[in-house]
């Protein structure tokens, strides 16, 4: 049982990964080690006004975290990605800190889940 609204229930994750807790931990560790770098590239590109590239980078983040996050966080990512893709950069910039906060909460919850 986890309390983070952004992380799928651990039991569901294990089921999704063929019943293997080891596999969940392995993939989670890869994800935890990599999403930050992709996110930074997204944020840098967004600040620099490169909407399409920012959207591409956020798309990668979405692909990586997609297996673990809840619909709520997934939708949040899609919204910012769409804004960046459509060139609505100011709106995307406004939403970016909130998105980062959600992803960090997700990150903490996932770390705690696999440590348990």
């Amino acid at each position, binding site marked *: 049982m986890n309390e983070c609204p952004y992380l799928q229930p651990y039991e569901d994750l294990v089921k999704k990964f063929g019943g293997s807790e080891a596999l969940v931990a392995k*993939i989670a560790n890869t994800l935890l080690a990599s*999403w930050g770098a992709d996110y930074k590239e997204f944020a840098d590109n967004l600040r620099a006004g490169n909407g399409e590239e920012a959207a591409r980078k956020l798309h*990668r983040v979405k*692909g*990586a975290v*997609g297996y673990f996050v809840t619909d709520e966080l*997934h939708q949040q990512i899609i919204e910012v990605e769409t804004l960046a893709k459509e060139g609505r950069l100011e709106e995307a910039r406004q939403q970016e800190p909130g998105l980062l906060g959600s992803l960090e909460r997700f990150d903490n919850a996932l770390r705690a889940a696999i440590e348990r």
Partner: protein
Amino acid sequence: MYPLVILERIAQNDQRGLTRRVKILYAEDNQTQAEIIKDFLDLGLPAAELDHVETLAEAEAKLKNDSYDIVLLDLGLPDAEGSVVVQGVHTADPKAKIIVLTAQGEEESARQCLKIGASEYLVKRDVTYECLLKAIASVTSEGSESIQVEVEQTLEELRAMAGKDSDSSFEQFGKVYSRLISEPRFVKSSEHRKFAEQLVSRGLSGADALALHADSLESVCKQAERQDLASVLKSSQTVLTATLVYMIDAKRSVSEEKPL
């Protein structure tokens, strides 16, 4: 629910399910996603051969130099996106079965890909170990299931026409007859004619020949690679026709030689 037995057979590369190792090409540039799919395959298809590439150009090059049963395809590669990716892969190897992995919200694009060569699509976020194996089982058995049915129907028809079992004739002649079916170079050769004459001299009728043909065909099909069944079935028709014609000829010769 997909029959568990098929998943198990595929997982074990069982002779009854897949007669050879499944070869998969996986095109994906996102490392985390790639690792997830690779781990699913390691877990479910440990004997599968997997090649991973990150671009369409690399995928096309692999497909031109090698043969794959399945291509798992991300629609957002660095050098191409959407249907262009599927078209490129399908052109490079029209025989490879394509399973598209698409992002949530882009299902319409994936559905379009089914019209231009993809066999199946999966939404990445929803991909589980089980559904990935199901998709692989589904596309790899597409063709082989139908040919298996065709073989069984043919055997049934032949046995119904014969109206009898081959009994001891299969023990006597099955080995040679099976060779005629499996090795097309002997079909309509002088050996084939002599073999048919031998059947007549041993007193076999047309019905006996049909029964012998059915048992021999069944024996060859059991040993054949699944992908070879269609050609075995096709060549067996020529074998049967020629055998019956040679037997008629032989009978006619025998009756002509009989003194009045």
